[in-house]
């Protein structure tokens, strides 16, 4: 990745940490700085990993680490934690603090905290073009003087100041670090002075500047405490710091030193801004954002408007997405045939065609849906509308222990659990996101529809199937909300996470940003999920095909040859399929675990179908078809399979079967994505246990109740 020609001396390697609050145009800036998209930049809220951009400028080799947006120097959200950990524990030379010129008062909160970190800082006054439009005039030179830190006006949109920014970073890198001029109120300055005097008298030499050390001790900065606690001087220093803290808290009439410092910073910032910023804006009228909000978060029309947007997105996702899906499906079918014809060995052909190509095909099949859905979600988010949705819905969802933004992943779950799990990333808080991830499976995905259609058709007259389907979907969703409540009261117990969220300005996102985001998401899905899923599908294929007892095959083949009619041959072929599946590892497991599912009224065949359904729900219908001996080519429309099921499965068992389908793990692909999104394999096992137990208990209850009601 290095381009050695521009980097002749290793000493000229600059690592820059790019830090800023969310929605300040950081990713746009990094794109204009580097020009080259070596790594794709992140944008607020979706990528929580830091990204690196490498490029050369003049004789310097730059590594810019783009850290997730963070409001304050805390570790409240994942983004903040990533940024916090990097800034405290990693090696870097210069911090570029990107601020939004139109809202300096808020942005400088973070800045003032960065200034006490003992690092070289350059401030990029970004969006300076927007500020100009709004009549905000900033004296960057005077600001640099007052802060003791270079402030450069930049604009990612007009490329203004980008060169100057880089030159300043180089200058700052080459020079010794200058102490920023962070001035506090007299009371605090006095205490700092006391501590400084103490440090000087005791000849305490540390890598931190003494003033930074004093400030951080007063603020209760953990890293600094850890560093100094090991020194003998600590014993004498402690009472000094304690006394100073008490004075400051008293002065600010609070028992929270951080609050006191926040007030200190705020008044310092107000002072700086009063000197350096002039606002020539005419008397404030309603901004465009406020006008749009009058409609979109209207107390009455707000929710219907949102529901319409969602409906439109789903229409697009599943109707428009279905078009390329058919092509992809037939492409992989065709590829399977072509490749299959070139392979002589039956076992290898089956592995390649049914296992590998089939498995990868099943993953690629969902790509169009994912692309459309992510375009939609990216638009909802980058325009700022998503925050409004959370605002509108939080009241209802909070009652079930969920977050307003949980709505999007949950509704997406009705289409397919995979994009649903991925879209849960919009939830910033760990616990909210995990809880939502656990509930998504309750929203019946599209792949379960064939099973529902089959059973509804088998047991109910045609005109009632629609209603039955509706009942299945609704009860699934209600169960999900109930499960959320139960989980919230048990596993995710504790105080509610607070809901305090910025309502960003409405912005029209650039095509580039949307494209980058959708591209990255899709590629990650194909790459990571694809490799896992392909491997796992091969495993399921293996389990359902081996051990391959050739005796069974020979026995039936002999019979098939002797069979006189086509019908008899077909019947025998089905019997062969059933016998082979029963003898496979999967079949053996199904038979072995049959006593376990007996209380639910399920036999080993339904058990095997359910287990095969762990791979994908589409497999359930075809497995049932094989097991109830109708040949491989079955779909939900096959009337004879309906008849068979009606004949052989009692209604209470069928209901229990459907209940299990509704609740247990969606599919293998979704499980892989779930694990990735949840962040740890242990969550997958929690999910497995949770859904299995829930499915078992609910199915048992459904079976028993229907036995009584139906008098079976």
């Amino acid at each position, binding site marked *: 990745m290095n381009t050695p020609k521009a980097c002749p001396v290793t000493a000229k390697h600059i690592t820059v940490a790019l830090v800023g609050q969310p929605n300040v145009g950081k990713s746009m800036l990094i794109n204009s700085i580097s020009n080259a998209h070596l790594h794709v930049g992140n944008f607020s809220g979706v990528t929580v990993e830091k990204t690196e951009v490498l490029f050369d400028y003049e004789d310097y080799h730059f590594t810019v680490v783009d850290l997730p947006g963070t409001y304050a120097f805390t570790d409240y959200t994942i983004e903040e934690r990533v940024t916090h950990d990097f800034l405290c524990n990693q090696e870097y030379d210069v911090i570029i603090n990107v601020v939004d010129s139109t*809202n300096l*008062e*808020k942005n400088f*909160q*973070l800045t003032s905290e960065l200034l006490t970190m003992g690092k070289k800082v350059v401030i990029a006054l970004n969006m300076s073009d927007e500020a100009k439009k709004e009549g905000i005039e900033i004296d960057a030179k005077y600001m640099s003087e007052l802060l003791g830190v270079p402030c450069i006006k930049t604009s990612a949109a007009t490329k203004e100041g980008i060169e100057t920014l880089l030159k300043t970073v180089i200058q700052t890198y080459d020079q010794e670090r200058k102490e920023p001029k962070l001035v506090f109120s007299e009371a605090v300055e006095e205490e700092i002075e006391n501590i400084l005097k103490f440090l000087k008298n005791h000849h305490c030499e540390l890598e931190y500047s003494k003033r930074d050390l004093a400030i951080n001790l007063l603020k209760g900065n953990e890293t600094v405490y850890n560093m100094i606690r090991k020194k003998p001087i600590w014993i004498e220093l402690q009472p000094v710091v304690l006394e100073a803290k008490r004075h400051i808290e008293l002065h600010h009439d609070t028992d929270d030193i951080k609050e006191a410092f926040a007030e200190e910073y705020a008044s310092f910032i107000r002072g700086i801004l009063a000197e350096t910023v002039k606002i020539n804006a005419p008397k404030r009228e309603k901004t465009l954002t406020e006008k749009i909000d009058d409609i979109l978060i209207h107390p009455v029309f707000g929710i219907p408007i949102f529901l319409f947007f969602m409906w439109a997105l789903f229409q697009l996702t599943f109707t428009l997405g279905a078009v390329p899906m058919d092509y992809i499906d037939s492409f992989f079918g065709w590829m399977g045939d072509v490749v299959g014809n070139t392979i002589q060995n039956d076992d290898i052909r089956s592995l390649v065609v049914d296992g590998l190509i089939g498995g990868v095909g099943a993953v690629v099949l969902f790509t169009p849906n994912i692309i459309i859905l992510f375009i939609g979600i990216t638009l909802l988010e980058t325009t700022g509308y998503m925050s409004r949705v959370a605002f509108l819905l939080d009241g209802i969802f909070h009652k079930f222990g969920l977050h307003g933004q949980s709505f999007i992943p949950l509704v997406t779950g009705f289409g397919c659990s995979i994009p649903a799990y991925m879209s849960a990333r919009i939830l910033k808080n760990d616990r909210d996101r995990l809880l939502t991830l656990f509930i998504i499976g309750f929203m019946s995905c599209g792949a379960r529809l064939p099973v529902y259609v089959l059973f509804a058709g088998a047991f109910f007259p045609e005109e009632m199937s629609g209603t039955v389907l509706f009942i299945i979907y609704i009860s699934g969703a209600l169960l999900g909300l109930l499960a959320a409540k139960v989980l919230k009261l048990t596993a995710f117990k504790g105080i509610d996470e607070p*809901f*305090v969220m910025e309502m960003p300005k409405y912005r029209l996102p650039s095509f580039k940003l949307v494209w980058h985001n959708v591209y990255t998401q899709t590629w990650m899905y194909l790459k990571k999920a694809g490799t896992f899923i392909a491997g796992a599908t091969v495993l399921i294929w293996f389990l359902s095909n081996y051990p391959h007892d050739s005796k069974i095959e020979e026995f039936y083949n002999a019979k098939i040859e002797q069979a006189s009619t086509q019908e008899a041959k077909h019947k025998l072929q089905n019997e062969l399929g059933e016998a082979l599946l029963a003898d496979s590892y999967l079949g053996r497991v199904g038979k072995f675990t049959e006593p376990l599912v007996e209380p639910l009224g399920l036999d080993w065949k339904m058990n095997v179908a359910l287990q095969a359904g762990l791979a994908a729900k589409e497999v359930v219908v075809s497995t049932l078809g094989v097991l109830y001996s109708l040949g491989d080519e079955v779909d939900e429309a096959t009337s004879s399979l309906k008849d068979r099921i009606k004949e052989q499965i009692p209604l209470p068992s069928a209901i229990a079967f459907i209940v299990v389908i509704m609740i247990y793990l969606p599919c293998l692909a979704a499980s892989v994505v779930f694990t990735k999104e949840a962040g740890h394999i242990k969550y997958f096992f929690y999910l497995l246990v949770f859904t299995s137990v829930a499915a078992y208990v609910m199915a048992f209850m459904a079976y028993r109740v229907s036995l009584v009601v139906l008098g079976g």
Partner: protein
Amino acid sequence: MNLIELDIGEEAVVKKLTASSDLKRRLISFGVMKGAHVKVLAVAPAKSTIEIEAGKMKLALRKEEAKTVEVERV
């Protein structure tokens, strides 16, 4: 009085934050701190969530969080 008692369009000055220290820090990082000027911009159905303006920033708070911000009407 606290934030949730204000109606749309009303303005107030923050008097005290009574939240736990995590939430307090979060509020402060959004500019809601003692002495800050706030204005209620919108309320969600049933006043379960409110939107306020603090400085130049607009933010949404749940009812429970809004209750921890003591204010005085101006």
